[in-house]
């Protein structure tokens, strides 16, 4: 179907809903690379005008990737909750933007609405929102999940401790883990990206994480971020698997590029549920996403990268995850060129994830071939904290020595806790207090590594 808008007497025409969405997106290098970006700034504003006037119902009839050939589209359409949609069913995308910002639209209303919104509706409305709008609406939404502690409570912000090592040395991983625990990081998850996919190595890492958790009685969950099919095998071999990890994308074909499908995710979800390892809750899945993944796999079907990204959230929410995060600047400058584009994308991803009902976090990060530096990351972490993000990722001194990119530091998490008053998960905070790691003002002390020296394996 075609769409149009009039601005200043000029008529702007668009050939499809997909094109309106792509043209309405803020400028970014990945959409230019895909050849789907608005050809000029006027067309972009024209597309936003057209988009504002499109009824939300249209999105149930015109899908960007065919229902017949894409299982993500089928998931989106088949799981749409008409009753939840009813309160906004009469609205256009422009109406929805204003309604989301209305004082009367509170967190409970938005939580009830989530199953009624499709990924494309959520992507659409974000394109009509400024950065402050993305922050203001996201901040209203609370998404609570639990495994061995509770994530997403109001006033709380979790952190993932990411102690990677270039050759998966157990003492090396342990040393970085110890540093993070001493700085009060890791309640969301202690999650390791293995350099290798060696199965014996994977099992060794999981056992080490389990030993540390049990030895110090830490109310956290651990995760080895390996391919879902590896985790399935590890579970079969009785390795201590808390969370199942997988990178996901927004089309069937892009997911095939990751070597996954909805059915393999379902299989892993069922297997992890049957382990019953969570003490406070049953959320066992951990997903990572990021704008540009569909284009990178040449499977974007002419969609802009932000719309494709929100479709990945539709995949995620089918499995009640404990944690979801966008790895926003990891993909590189071909997709998000500079600090401005990364910051905008981070805010979009957080807002869209939350509106979809996900426990959304972020890896605030960049690579060394992008036009970004740590000042941009400072800005994004503070904005996301203001927006009420569920958790952020942190590595020693912001430098991931295995993946060769920069994220936040453990110290940054302390800075945010102090600046914004956000706290770790209550169960983890109690543990920090019991271990006398915080002072009377609730600040992390300069703790001695000897507190946890038992973490370091001796027999290396």
């Amino acid at each position, binding site marked *: 179907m075609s769409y149009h808008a009039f601005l200043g007497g000029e008529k702007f025409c668009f050939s499809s809903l997909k094109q309106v969405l792509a043209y309405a997106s803020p400028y970014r290098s990945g959409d230019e690379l895909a050849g789907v970006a608005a050809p000029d700034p006027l067309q972009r504003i024209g597309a936003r005008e057209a988009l504002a006037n499109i009824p939300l119902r249209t999105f149930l009839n015109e899908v960007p990737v065919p229902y017949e050939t894409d299982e993500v589209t089928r998931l989106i359409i088949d799981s749409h909750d008409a009753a939840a949609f009813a309160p906004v069913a009469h609205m256009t995308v422009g109406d929805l933007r204003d309604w989301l910002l209305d004082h009367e639209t509170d967190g409970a209303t938005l939580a009830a609405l989530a199953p009624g919104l499709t990924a494309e509706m959520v992507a659409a409305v974000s394109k009509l929102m400024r950065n402050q709008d993305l922050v203001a609406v996201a901040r209203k939404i609370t998404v609570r999940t639990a495994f061995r502690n509770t994530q997403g409570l109001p006033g709380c912000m979790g952190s993932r401790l990411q102690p990677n090592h*270039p050759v998966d040395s157990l003492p090396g991983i342990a040393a970085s883990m110890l540093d993070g625990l001493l700085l009060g990081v890791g309640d969301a998850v202690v999650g390791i990206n293995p350099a290798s996919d060696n199965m014996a190595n994977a099992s060794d890492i999981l056992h080490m994480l389990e030993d540390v958790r049990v030895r110090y009685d830490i109310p956290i969950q651990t995760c080895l971020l390996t391919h879902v099919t590896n985790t399935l095998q590890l579970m079969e071999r009785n390795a201590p698997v808390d969370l199942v990890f997988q990178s996901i994308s927004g089309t069937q074909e892009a997911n095939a590029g990751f070597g996954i499908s909805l059915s393999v995710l379902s299989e892993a979800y069922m297997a992890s549920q049957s382990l019953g390892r969570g003490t406070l809750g049953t959320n066992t899945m951990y997903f990572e996403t990021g704008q540009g993944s569909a284009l990178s*796999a040449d499977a974007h079907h002419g969609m802009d990268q932000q719309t494709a990204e929100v479709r990945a959230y539709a995949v995620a929410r089918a499995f009640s995850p404990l944690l979801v995060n966008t790895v926003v600047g990891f993909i590189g400058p071909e997709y998000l060129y500079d600090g401005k584009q990364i910051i905008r994308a981070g805010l979009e991803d957080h807002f869209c994830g939350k509106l979809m009902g996900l426990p959304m976090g972020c890896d605030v990060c960049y690579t060394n071939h992008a036009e970004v530096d740590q000042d941009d990351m400072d800005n994004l972490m503070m904005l996301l904290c203001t927006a009420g993000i569920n958790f952020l990722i942190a590595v*020693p001194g912001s430098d991931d020595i295995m993946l060769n990119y920069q994220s936040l530091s453990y110290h940054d998490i302390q800075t945010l806790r102090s600046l914004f008053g956000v706290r770790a998960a209550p169960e983890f905070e109690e543990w920090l207090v019991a271990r006398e790691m915080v002072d009377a003002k609730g600040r992390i002390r300069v703790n001695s590594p000897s507190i946890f020296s038992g973490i370091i394996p001796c027999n290396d």
Partner: protein
Amino acid sequence: MTDDRPISWQALQARTSARIGLARAGNTISGAAVREFQYAHVRARHAVSITLDINQLNLSLPHIEVESRAGDRDEYVRRPDLGRQLSDTSRESLPHGRYDIVFVIADGLSALAAQQQGPAVLAAVIPLLADWCIAPLVVAQRARVALGDEIATCLGARCVVMMIGERPGLRCAESMSLYMTWNPKVGMRDSGRNCISNIHGHGGLSAMTAASSLVWLLKMARMRNYSGVNLKDETCTIEQTVRPDGQKMLLDRTDQ
């Protein structure tokens, strides 16, 4: 509440090159460490712009030089699509034959990594592949991982190993990955590849260890006639790295 043996930061820092035990200023990191980080960042940024110097490879083997359709380093960084396609002249320079395998030394995002690690890995691997018919070595400029698929197709090789520079990091700007693809085809999925990463001399994988992992993988791939996520690394040693794509979101550190 020390319940373990005493341990110093110095001892811990000997276990990893990660920035652990940094001195603090209030909540944040001390100024000296912040300035050192900024210096490392600028150096890593510079490493991206360095071009591959074929003379520095000191190749004793006959080799063919090719380039992608990306005209310079800047275009290479911005246009991954061009980095995955051979230039017209390069395509014509590859003679079609019948080979079991082709090795490609490629600059990727760190030409220095390819220069330092490529020849070393190659020298360790080739003697272990006595019964393989090996195509002439290819050296590729401004290459993404998938450029290897087209190179293998042109040469008529059943397998391609891309030896490619990864994204430069702050601690190490010279890290190389190996991407092994069985039955490579233009436009194939990344889930069809296996990767051995972090090959470098700053606490990374040694060329020798990487070579032995690669040979194990190659033998498995030849036996099963496939590579990728379904080819699991079941070797026993710890220092193996065989990683199907897609772990930390989106491909890999060379940013295909």
